């Protein structure tokens, strides 16, 4: 149990996995110098340039070659640098990696982790800021993970590396320096949510950085006597429907909050499932918070217009509280 940051927690997970299993290796641009955010710093000293390997600027080849290496028995960790650049390798990820096991009738596996640093990071503009996690939930064959704390970035990255399925692993760029307790003995099960706060009045479902804003919001709401239960999904596929449904059955109110664009975002999936399963009880007390369907600007004040904040979550909760739990 030590305090460490989100970036170092992930590095520790990688280090331990590489020590435990020779088949694990990392491939990406600039990894030998620690990677663009320092997430790999020092690892090449320990594991050498073959296992912490510097790639040319060839995202399609990074993804495709790692896949080839996976189907012959290695376990690659692929670094995409910014999730935006993974768009240069979508055929490889979605047409090849996600489908191979199925198309080949189970003859092959692709045990890979594809790290995609995501999200807004001050003034990075439209090509270095986006959050497309919902896309990959819609691509059968893939697992999707979005950790929000150092602990989860440690435990879930380890679980992802150990998993025999391909995992798209979204780390939020704005959290690299976020500190927190990390217990290296804590294992994570992919698909289990973490209930971050408990409360009887409103369920707030979230993931990645926005889950931390949700916790902030819950603290504010608690001060007003409103009990918010924050369910941090942590993984979007599979996702913990039971944790959400149980909470909504208790609170009768649902907010889903995420940084990504609301339209077509995974928040819609959460709302849809809840509507189908407990729609009658919910009586319309449901709110989605996500970015407007616009692009992310460079100017800080414009960029801010795309953000989902703790205040917005608080406002939505207050608003839902106006709608009584008993009549629709």
């Amino acid at each position, binding site marked *: 149990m030590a305090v460490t940051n989100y970036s170092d927690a992930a590095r520790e997970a990688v280090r331990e996995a590489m020590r435990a299993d020779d*088949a694990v*290796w990392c491939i990406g641009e600039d990894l030998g110098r620690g990677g663009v955010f320092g997430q790999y710093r020092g690892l090449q000293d320990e594991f050498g340039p*073959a*296992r912490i*390997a510097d790639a*040319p600027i*060839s995202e*399609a*080849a990074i*993804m*495709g*070659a*790692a*896949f*080839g*290496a*996976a*189907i*012959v*028995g*290695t376990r690659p960790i692929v670094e995409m640098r910014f999730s935006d650049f993974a768009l240069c390798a979508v*055929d*490889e990820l979605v*047409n*090849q990696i996600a489908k*191979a*096991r*199925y*198309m*080949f*009738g*189970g*003859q*092959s596996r692709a045990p890979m982790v594809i790290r995609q640093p995501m999200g807004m990071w001050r003034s990075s503009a439209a090509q270095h800021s986006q959050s497309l996690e919902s896309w990959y939930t819609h691509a*059968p*064959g*893939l*697992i999707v993970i979005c950790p929000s704390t150092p602990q989860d970035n440690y435990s879930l990255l380890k679980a992802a590396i150990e*998993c*025999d*399925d*391909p995992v798209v692993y979204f780390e939020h760029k704005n959290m690299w320096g976020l500190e927190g307790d990390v217990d290296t003995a804590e294992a994570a099960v*992919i*698909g289990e949510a973490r209930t971050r706060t408990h409360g009887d009045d409103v369920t707030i479902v979230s993931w990645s950085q926005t889950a931390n804003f949700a916790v902030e919001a819950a603290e504010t709401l608690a001060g007003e006597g409103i009990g918010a239960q924050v369910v941090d999904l942590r993984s979007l*596929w*599979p996702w913990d429907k039971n944790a959400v449904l149980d909470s909504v059955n208790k609170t009768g109110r649902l907010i889903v909050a995420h940084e990504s664009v609301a339209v077509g975002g995974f928040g819609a999936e959460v709302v849809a*499932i809840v509507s189908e399963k407990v729609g009658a009880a919910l009586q319309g007390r449901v709110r989605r918070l996500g970015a407007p369907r616009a692009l992310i600007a460079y100017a800080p004040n414009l960029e801010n217009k795309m953000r989902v904040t703790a205040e917005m979550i608080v406002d939505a909760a207050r608003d839902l509280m106006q709608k009584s739990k008993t009549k629709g």
Partner: protein
Amino acid sequence: MNQANFDRERGVKLLATMERIRAFEENAVLAAERDKLVLGAIHPSFGQEAAAAGVLWPLRTDDYLISTHRGHGHTLAKGADPIAMMRELLGREGGCCGGKGGSMHIADFNVNMLGANGVVGANITIGAGAAHGVKLQGGDQVVIDIFGDGAANRGPFLEGLNWAVVFQLPILFVCEDNQYAATTKTTSVTGGDGPAARAASLGLPTQTLDGNDVEAIADAVTETITRIRNGGRPEFLHVITYRQKGHTSFDQAAYRPDGEADKQMADNDPIQRQKNVLAAVGVAADEMQAIHDAAQAEMAGALQTAADTPFPDEALAFTDVQDVGSPVVEAF
């Protein structure tokens, strides 16, 4: 060819492989066009059998092959079971991919055949990666990565070949140039001196071969594979052949210049050429006829067996997607 040194046994085997490939595809086309048993598109390789037989000749079973949508020949030459392949084309139980892949995704991991691919060029980086995996694990296998002339215009050509050079990987890239990409004459959309020039610029030793001369291909690849296995450096082969029929079995290929295909079939059919070679070194016509007949019988039998095989159990529609979050356990 030096008649004295001629390897008769190899020559006969190469002929047999080509005859088997042709017979397999003739039966596959019958299954598709006559019997309506193959419901998806198939891409036969009539006229390209020498490339498959010759290129795969020196490979060990544990060497790797990765191929394309037009990969029946390569897969057979690598040693896959034609019954399992035919079942796959018919979408039946016991197909190499359990009926889930079909012609464009045939794979047989038993013989280290890592799959055909429905996306042109995608197999170039994947093959490079397979070689990367071999190197990381300290293996001595070689990867053969076959793609078409059309694939040389896709980005993965540059990225995958560069990758193999940068990481010094044991892989032979083979551009099986049948002169067409679907309905398009490939030279009309290809700048410069073509695939071999591109490969050379990326740092690979290259050879350009008559793709309908199976003996020459087998000779060259035998030496090349040895060099790659010992040296761990990638190389490139440009094998020039001709697609005698349409892009798919549906395609009449009316867009080709008059007479082009007829002339190729008459003068440059790889099977006929190999028969001529063997005749010249004294292989009897009867022996060659027997090879032909055996291939025909084997593949007609494969088709019959496949046609008699049931479709897969429907529950299999949802298996082998993924372990965690599998559709078998997760409703949506």
